């Protein structure tokens, strides 16, 4: 009876894991098929894989450049968000500065298009369209509130005594913040850094309007695969795999703290 129950449970568990796995597998398969195989019916599940699409994606579509663009923008947005966000989150948690929390809530509720239109007009005026500056600034609209919002809950969960002990030992507040407090919340920092990187990497709307030939990021680049008249499905499969893989690996490593961060943040808001 017990084995039967457990078989039943695992059958259900596997069934519940099929949807996420299937789409992931289908994405990889699409990238390994030839163009003809991709439009044949019935769809082929077993075939001789080809790396031709990956070669094309890098050589014809110059995808390496777009990957670098995304890396630069996501890296900059994340770095700036941490430098500005960590002290702010610490202060909000310590001094209960709820009003700043309200500012962050407004930032999160406002539709991205509401920012995009003014920024587009401003950047157009300043001739900053298609620059890393424009992309990083707009990505900060998403990543900075996210870092602060996540970090406040991590700072609140931190014991205050340790910091007091450091102060008694003659540390200045700045020293104790840098040497005692930040190492204590390193899990939180890793989580918010990776979340910030993922959301900047995945950002489409701002980059769609504000990037150009020089700074095009990967979501816009892969989207352009469908606007060349004929849809290159094999190329999309390969490019999508290249885009999704890095962020999936990142998320995998911090999956536990991501959930913790989201839950704590959600419960407090």
């Amino acid at each position, binding site marked *: 009876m017990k084995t039967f129950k457990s078989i039943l449970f695992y059958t259900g568990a596997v069934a519940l894991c099929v949807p996420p796995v299937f789409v992931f597998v289908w994405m990889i398969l699409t990238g390994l098929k030839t163009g003809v195989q991709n439009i044949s019916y019935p769809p082929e599940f077993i075939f001789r894989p080809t790396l031709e699409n990956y070669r094309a994606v890098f050589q014809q579509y110059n995808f390496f450049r777009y990957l670098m663009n995304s890396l630069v923008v996501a890296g900059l947005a994340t770095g700036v968000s941490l430098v500005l966000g960590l002290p702010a989150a610490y202060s909000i948690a310590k001094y209960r500065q709820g009003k700043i929390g309200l500012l962050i809530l407004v930032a999160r509720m406002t539709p991205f*298009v509401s920012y995009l239109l003014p920024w587009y007009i401003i950047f157009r005026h300043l001739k900053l369209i298609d620059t890393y500056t424009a992309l990083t600034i707009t990505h900060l609209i998403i990543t900075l509130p996210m870092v602060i919002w996540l970090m406040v809950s991590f700072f609140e969960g931190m014991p205050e005594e340790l910091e007091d002990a450091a102060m008694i030992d003659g540390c200045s507040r*700045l020293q104790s913040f840098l040497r005692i407090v930040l190492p204590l919340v390193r899990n939180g920092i890793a989580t918010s850094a990776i979340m910030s990187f993922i959301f900047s990497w995945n950002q489409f709307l701002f980059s769609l309007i504000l990037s150009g030939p020089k700074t095009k990021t990967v979501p816009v680049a892969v989207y352009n695969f469908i606007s060349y008249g004929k849809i290159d499905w094999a190329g999309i499969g390969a490019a*999508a795999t290249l885009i999704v893989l890095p962020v999936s690996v990142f998320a995998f490593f911090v999956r536990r703290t991501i959930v913790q961060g989201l839950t704590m943040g959600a*419960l407090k*808001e």
Partner: protein
Amino acid sequence: MKTAPSTISRFMDRHQALVYPAPAVIALFFIVIIPIAYNLYLTFTKWTIGLGQPQFIGFGNFIELVSDERVLNGMKVMIYFSGLSLSLELVLGLLIAVYFNREFKGSEIVQAIYIFPFAATPVAVALIWRIMLNPEIGVMNYLLRSVGLPGSLWVSSPLTVIPALVMVDVWKWTPMITLIVLAGLKSLPHDPYEAARIDGANTFQIFWYITLPLIWPVLIAALMLRSLDNLKEFDMIYTITQGGPGISSETLYLYSYNVGFSFFKAGYGSALMVVVFLIVLVFNVVMNRMRLRAQDL
């Protein structure tokens, strides 16, 4: 660690509550508040980007908005899409979380698999879904037909486009709700469950009378978190249908984008964006009331 504190360091120590948040607040003021204010100003103007200067027209845009049929359509699509996807994500997320809420070998693997749709780049997976949903050669119809069901037109028909988009949204976001609720379930107290079991309550009674009320605040919080993005869903709909066929999947948000960046009508577009913001705001205020009431119980 004992170095003589410099003047700057001493100043920072004395005014920590001011100095630490200041850079972030100033940054947010420039990147968030100023654009919002500019956007609000534009709502009272008529202006095609690139042509002349904004003209003040008072509430003209809001008057135009009331009689615009695409606004009405956008609201309907938004309610249909968000209502269906949010409720499915919540119910499925909760049920799956309850299912996985036990000790078993492989729980780590489930967690790893469930984080994937959350992290996956929306545009990239939306394109893969677009391929899978192709009515003639897509794998979804192949799978349906191979078990004897008729294929669907999915996103190619105005009748099925919203349910099909909801399916993609549910695919992407239910796992996140599951993981959040699962973390919430793990932190629930044990006592009520033991008492209920002693009283002979069955599984359904335990779920309905104990688990559900206890997890309710987490559930509403997850819904609020999710609604912030769901009501402003753009990437997935834009990538798969661009609001089509016709305007059958054009949410109010997508329409406001089109007005701003396809028609370049800055004033009218801004007015539409304000309406979207108000919808998100009202929804979250109502949800927050519900959550606070649930926590008081």
